[in-house]
């Protein structure tokens, strides 16, 4: 099943596989890193991974809607990064700390 | 495979050559800068080593190469080493995307017993359909070189310089990008070659469906986009960290800014990066607003081969069109270089004329003056194009 030919004939599945790996990396960063900003970077990585799959799908189907989606995702990701960083800066100014461990005030 | 390998080989060669061109321009520019500043300040400048002090460049190079490599003890060696490289790469990449002359059609020929071509030879490292976006994207990476240098040095002055530089770069990137939008709207393309081609024609306005010819004037962007040109040029100063925007290396405040800890060849690489950026900036100005490698009606891709034809025949070359076009392309290349040099001189001229801004003035100018004006320029251009090019029921 997994022949050299399928490996060499680069198509949509390859890119989706790559995108899945990057996505899981981003998710691990969000789930496991302690630094708030690195968590934000994980979010960016996840978004980018999804973008990659969008572009790959777009190419496969010859449809530009995927590009539009990526365009929107990028814009919103930039906005999200701006807000996230502003919050991080505000937190840092107040507590001198960006370790998520110190922000567990929402305990039940 | 043959033709693939040939193209890869040619492109690789072109990349190397263009990169070397950029690097070799730097010593010359340094000499121009030093002599020019001396001229402006009414002194002599370097004049001892060689004729007109030209050999000074060589002496400097030797000095840079033989200096001790030095890394701050508490710095981050990897970042410290990589920063100068990163500072240089964006300029080189951007310069590679700029067309230095017209594309030449190479006829099919035989070499080493194989058929090659026909082939379109482009005077640039790589042709990218969306050249403008590519150049913008690549040059926006330049901030990292400065940032890494500042951080890697682990020196507070260096860090301050780096932070200033990156803030300045991303602030002025907005105004720069927006001022280019006018040109893109005007010529309706992202491709440098097409922009240049569009400018090698008589100046013509579309006025409510009527075409107005403006005689011998060339169709240069500056006639449509004077505001955009001024804004782009100002933003370029900030992007290259040149005076009056050289806050990142303000000697009075930050010792030497982000390259405080750098010496020897690493320092030289920052120099190459800065001058490379100047080169790219001047080339962009020329391509967007001043006709690129053409001067209509005298020198255009159509007329250049005819102009060089007598020289070719005088040299005894055949009227082989490939050779003549190559010669014509060289002529156009010289035209581009002349224009670029003019702008490079303006860069140097400004540096030795204007004082430095204060940091708040810099931010104020970027965000509250240039950005709104660039926005205004964009909207005005779009509106005018919409109104003028609309056929209005005709």
């Amino acid at each position: 099943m997994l022949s050299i030919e399928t490996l060499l004939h680069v198509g949509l599945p390859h890119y989706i596989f790559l995108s899945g790996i990057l996505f899981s990396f981003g998710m691990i960063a969000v789930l496991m890193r302690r630094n708030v900003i690195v968590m934000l970077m994980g979010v960016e990585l996840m978004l980018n991974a999804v973008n990659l799959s969008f572009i790959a799908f777009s190419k496969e189907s010859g449809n530009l809607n995927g590009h539009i989606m990526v365009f929107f995702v990028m814009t919103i990701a930039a906005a999200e990064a701006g807000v996230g960083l502003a919050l991080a800066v505000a937190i840092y100014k107040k507590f001198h700390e960006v370790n998520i461990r110190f922000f567990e005030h929402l305990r039940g | 495979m043959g033709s693939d390998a040939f193209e890869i080989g040619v492109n690789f060669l072109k990349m190397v050559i263009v990169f070397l061109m950029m690097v070799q321009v730097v010593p010359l520019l340094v000499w121009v800068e030093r002599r020019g500043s001396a001229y402006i300040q009414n002194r002599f400048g370097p004049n001892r080593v060689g004729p007109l002090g030209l050999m000074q460049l060589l002496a400097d190079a030797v000095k840079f190469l033989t200096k001790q490599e030095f890394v701050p003890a508490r710095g981050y060696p990897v970042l410290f080493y990589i920063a100068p490289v990163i500072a240089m790469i964006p300029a080189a990449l951007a310069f590679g995307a700029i067309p230095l002359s017209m594309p030449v059609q190479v006829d099919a020929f035989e070499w080493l017993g194989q058929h090659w071509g026909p082939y379109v030879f482009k005077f640039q490292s790589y042709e990218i359909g969306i050249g403008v976006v590519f150049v913008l994207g690549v040059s926006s990476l330049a901030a990292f070189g400065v940032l890494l240098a500042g951080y890697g040095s682990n020196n507070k002055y260096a860090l301050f310089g780096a932070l200033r530089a990156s803030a300045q770069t991303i602030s002025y990137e907005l105004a720069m990008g927006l001022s280019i939008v006018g040109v893109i709207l005007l010529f309706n393309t992202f491709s440098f070659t097409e922009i240049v081609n569009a400018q090698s024609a008589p100046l013509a306005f579309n006025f409510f469906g009527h075409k107005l010819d403006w005689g011998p004037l060339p169709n240069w962007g500056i006639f449509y986009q004077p505001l955009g040109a001024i804004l782009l040029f100002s933003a370029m100063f900030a992007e290259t960290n040149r005076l009056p925007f050289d806050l990142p290396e303000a000697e009075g405040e930050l010792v030497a800014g982000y390259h405080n800890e750098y010496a020897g060849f690493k320092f030289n690489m920052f120099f190459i990066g800065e001058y490379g950026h100047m080169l790219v900036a001047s080339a962009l100005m020329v391509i967007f607003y001043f006709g690129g490698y053409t001067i209509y009606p005298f020198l255009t891709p159509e007329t250049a081969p005819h102009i060089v034809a007598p020289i070719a025949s005088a040299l005894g070359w055949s009227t082989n069109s490939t050779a003549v076009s190559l010669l014509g392309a060289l002529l156009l290349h010289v035209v581009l270089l002349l224009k670029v040099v003019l702008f490079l001189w303006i860069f140097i001229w400004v540096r030795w004329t204007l004082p430095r801004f204060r940091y708040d003035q810099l931010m104020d100018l970027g965000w509250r003056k240039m950005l709104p004006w660039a926005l205004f320029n964009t909207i005005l251009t779009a509106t005018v194009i919409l109104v003028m090019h609309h056929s209005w029921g005709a």
Partner: protein
Amino acid sequence: MWEAIAFYSLAIFLIYFAFKTITVPNPIHAALYLVLTMIGLGAAFFNLGAQFIAGVQMIVYAGAVMVLFVMVLMLFDLKAELRAFSRGLFSGGLKVMSAALLAGLAIGAANSSVAILENPDSAKPVADVTRQLGILLYTKYLYAFEALGILLLAVAVGVVAVSRIKGGTHAQH
């Protein structure tokens, strides 16, 4: 073959740098690795024929967002962390597992829907992608585009408001 070479070298590059992004203890190094990942993704986009998106990726992500990240991190002056990851072996394992599961499921779902996606009529490369993209953006997706503009405005205002919060060295005593 060239395609395969390009893809695999790019994939190795991307996976390596993404892995480094999430594992290096120094957040600045993580950010720099992420920049490299972004650039690699831009290359991947370019490879897939999305030149404009690739350019935007460079300008927006690599050039602006990541510069901001690096700047903020430098401002914080954080040293390399002793423990970059959150505690708990079990929860850590669960997290990795769930991420891997999710990624696997997403890949599976995407792959199984490939057949549905394939539309023989339109499955030919689009010429002049950038122009088509622009036309699509300003016709079919015009309202979304405008809404995005308003969102950005709101975000700009919000960010200014958030970053004006007094605290730390700015606190008034």
